[in-house]
């Protein structure tokens, strides 16, 4: 059953997957073609291109996460309801299939990084980090995919609650600000989410294929 779900999911998303794969190869190749002469020039170039990795991770998670549930939502889940399995099991199969496709993009990113860094003649002291960047890309893609998958799997009421909570936070921020308090709720939450141990910690900092 998992193979069938994975296969159909691949068929629905094949063009997107190919596009994501091309981008995952283009980033390292673009970053490391005709490198500057000085080590600092190389690091600047790699840091500049490195910003494309987290953007691609978000795009990957977003596209695969939404496409996973798209057909079920369109068909009002008739297909899922005809299957003799509980909802959680069906959702798990769907989630697993999406993770496999996300990992596939991560593997392509890793191959692209390996290809781009192989045979590079770097100044002493600089090293390549193809594996580390690929793992980081893979984990952040899976994270975004999981968030999008969870949001897309909920009912309209759940989506409403999430939106209402966000609206409530913005309102609270406005009120706190209006009363002259220095507390910044949204900023604090963003810092917590991006700091060590937070869900988005891996997104912060530069993504360096070549570093010291």
């Amino acid at each position, binding site marked *: 059953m998992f193979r069938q779900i994975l296969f159909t999911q691949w068929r629905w998303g094949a063009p997107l997957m190919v596009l994501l794969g091309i981008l995952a190869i283009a980033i390292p190749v673009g970053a490391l073609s005709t490198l500057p002469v000085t080590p*600092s020039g190389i690091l600047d170039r790699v840091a500049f291109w490195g910003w494309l990795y987290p953007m691609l991770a978000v795009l990957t998670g977003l596209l695969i996460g939404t496409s996973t549930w798209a057909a079920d939502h369109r068909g009002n*889940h008739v297909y899922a309801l005809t299957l003799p399995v509980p909802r959680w099991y069906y959702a798990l199969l769907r989630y697993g299939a999406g993770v496999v496709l996300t990992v596939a993009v991560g593997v392509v990113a890793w191959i692209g990084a390996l290809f781009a860094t192989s045979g590079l003649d770097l100044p002493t002291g600089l090293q390549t980090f193809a594996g580390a960047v690929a*793992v980081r890309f893979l984990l952040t893609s899976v*994270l975004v995919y*999981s968030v999008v998958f969870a949001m897309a799997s*909920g*009912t309209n009421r759940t989506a409403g609650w999430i939106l209402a909570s966000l609206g409530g936070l913005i309102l609270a921020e406005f009120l706190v600000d209006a009363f002259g308090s220095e507390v910044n709720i949204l900023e604090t939450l963003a810092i917590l989410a991006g700091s060590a*141990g937070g869900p988005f910690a891996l997104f912060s900092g530069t993504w360096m294929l070549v570093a010291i």
Partner: protein
Amino acid sequence: MRTIAFLVALVVVIEPAAAQGPDVNALRQRTERLRALTRAAERVESEARRREAQVPKDTILAGPLRVIVERSRAHQVREGAEQAGETIQSLLGDDAYLLEGRYLQLAFGIGTSSGAGQIPVVGLPGNPSADDVRRTIMGWVGPLLASRASAELRAWTGIPIEVDSVRIFRAAHVDLVTALPGAASRCLAGALTDCGIALGLEAPTSPPHAYWDEHARREAVRRLAPSWTQGSLEQVSVACLDGDDPSCIAYLDARFAANAGLVRQLAPLGTASRQTVLLVAMRLGGSGALGRLVSDPSANPRRAIEAAAGQPIEQVLATWHGTVTAANPERRTTPGARLATLFWSLIFGAMALGGTRWRVG
């Protein structure tokens, strides 16, 4: 159309005002207002100092240094002050007398001030750790002692002695790797003589050749040219940037000839690297190293470092090279961060499995 009309109206309104120039009376009024504000600020400051003076104080010894602090919060400072005292004692040894009779006041949550004839006041965070206190005290002691060093040594290190050694050694590692290729890259590969040249401890006969490789010379000129192109040198720098290496050498030679101090200043390895050489020398020298570093007011950097370390410069540079190349920069993507991301992915994934209803409509 409406936008254009608005812009025209704006120009008509603004233009006459701009043409009038600054109004002398308005400027006078602003000066008066500023004077009044300054007087008010001085009143507030003197009131704050009067109140501060009335708060009961304690004196804590940090080695030879006397630290004054609010009595009610002395317990927050004692441990850090003792640590600073140990550091001062170990760095200065017999020369600790340099700080004897000196007072330093630590105040919570305010800025630093050092008016003439007053005890200098240095700010501490609201709830300081022992390390905060130690660093604050050393941050004041370092520049004070550095000011006793020879002018040449002060010019070579650039800024006062840094005591946060982990961070500074990492910065030196980055400096060593990212410096323009030439002496610095040969130093990185282990050539200690080149380390001395790259650090500006040795004066080479031809700095453009000794400091940089051909490509790096062009890059050095690219960085320097905007700040210094006079007469015919402008053409030389343009020729250099077009790829003519002799022009690069001519430009750099002219620049060094015009200002001999630049030979040391433009040596490829900068402040972080130079400060770590001082730290290594002090570690090697043990007790009294800092005192020896600053004791000779005419010593050049090399002699001062050898005096501090009690060893020849080659030995200091060998230890420095080993320490700096081992100080790898911090990595953000630690295994812990990766596990945390995986954990959060599973949490979000599990949230999707928990529901019992299907989204319909």
